[in-house]
């Protein structure tokens, strides 16, 4: 079963093998849940969100034509559901201090960089409305391309590029800040 591609699984599900859909859920639930955490900043809502995304995706499976990857298509469903839930629900709260997002402890150098990256991203995100915030998360945390992000969020390609560029520039400023005499700052 593990060797079937997403498209093959979808074809089988359409022919009535509903249980195979579980394989698709297992493949992508981690990333959808992570997106839920980015949207709602709490595990409970993120879990409900993950379930709802896969149910919505199942309902709309007949509309998936395979023009983009299933992952991109699924994230489009997830993005719109997240935006819609956030509009209806109370404002998101911050992650509690003890919320464990790491199953393994990163090394000190990695932790330092991670903190810097997160801080730079947060600074870049502070200025942005939610839909642009998620657009940066899709780029930095989910490794999506400009084109994919634009396709998922319907934000023009140029706008995606400029937001990502600004966020990267903030990160560069923070990283260069430790060595203020670097040639870039002259």
């Amino acid at each position, binding site marked *: 079963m593990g060797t079937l591609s997403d498209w093959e699984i979808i074809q089988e599900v359409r022919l009535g093998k509903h249980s195979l859909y579980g394989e698709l859920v297992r493949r992508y*639930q981690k990333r959808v849940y992570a997106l839920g955490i980015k949207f709602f900043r709490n595990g409970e809502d993120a879990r409900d969100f993950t379930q709802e995304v896969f149910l919505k995706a199942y309902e709309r499976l007949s509309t998936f034509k395979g023009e983009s990857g299933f992952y991109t298509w699924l994230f489009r469903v997830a993005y719109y559901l997240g935006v819609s839930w956030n509009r209806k629900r109370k404002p998101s709260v911050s992650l509690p201090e003890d919320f464990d997002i790491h*199953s393994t402890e*990163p090394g000190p150098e990695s932790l330092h960089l991670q903190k810097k990256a997160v801080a730079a991203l947060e600074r870049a995100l502070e200025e942005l409305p939610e839909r642009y915030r998620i657009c940066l998360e899709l780029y930095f945390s989910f490794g999506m391309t400009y084109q994919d992000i634009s396709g998922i969020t319907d934000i023009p390609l140029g706008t995606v590029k400029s937001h990502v560029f600004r966020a990267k520039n903030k*990160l*560069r400023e923070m990283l260069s800040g430790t060595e203020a005499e670097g040639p870039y700052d002259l």
Partner: protein
Amino acid sequence: MICKEAINHYLVLDQGEPIPRELQEHIDNCPHCCRLVHQMEAAFSSCRDSVEKIPCPDVAESVLKAIAEAERLTAPLPFRSTSPGNWIVPGIFLFLGILGLPFSTVLATLVNHTGRSLEIWVPLVLGTTFTLYAALFAGSNLDWLRKKFIH
């Protein structure tokens, strides 16, 4: 290529986009840019890793259960067939009613009131009704008829 130009060029690169040769040469020969690019790559990698490390509950079973439940609720109700006996008895009454019509005074009274064309239309309508009834009966009880008359 000066450092500012090189870094700006680097910052606009997309995910997985290869670094152009000229830019790569600059990075290789400039310790400052080399360090900055290395740090930025490590920071991007940390961001992606942080997502990978978020512990996720397994929702596959609950999703499949919800799908099964939704399909059960939206599935059409099973067709409940009427037993052959329930078809035959009304059918006999219908047939006898049609047969007995010429011998009753009902048809004669109707003809007197509405005109002679009714003598043609009443048997036609009743005959069609009986044919439809018989067809519905046969269609709904094909298995029973097969068992009864073929075997």
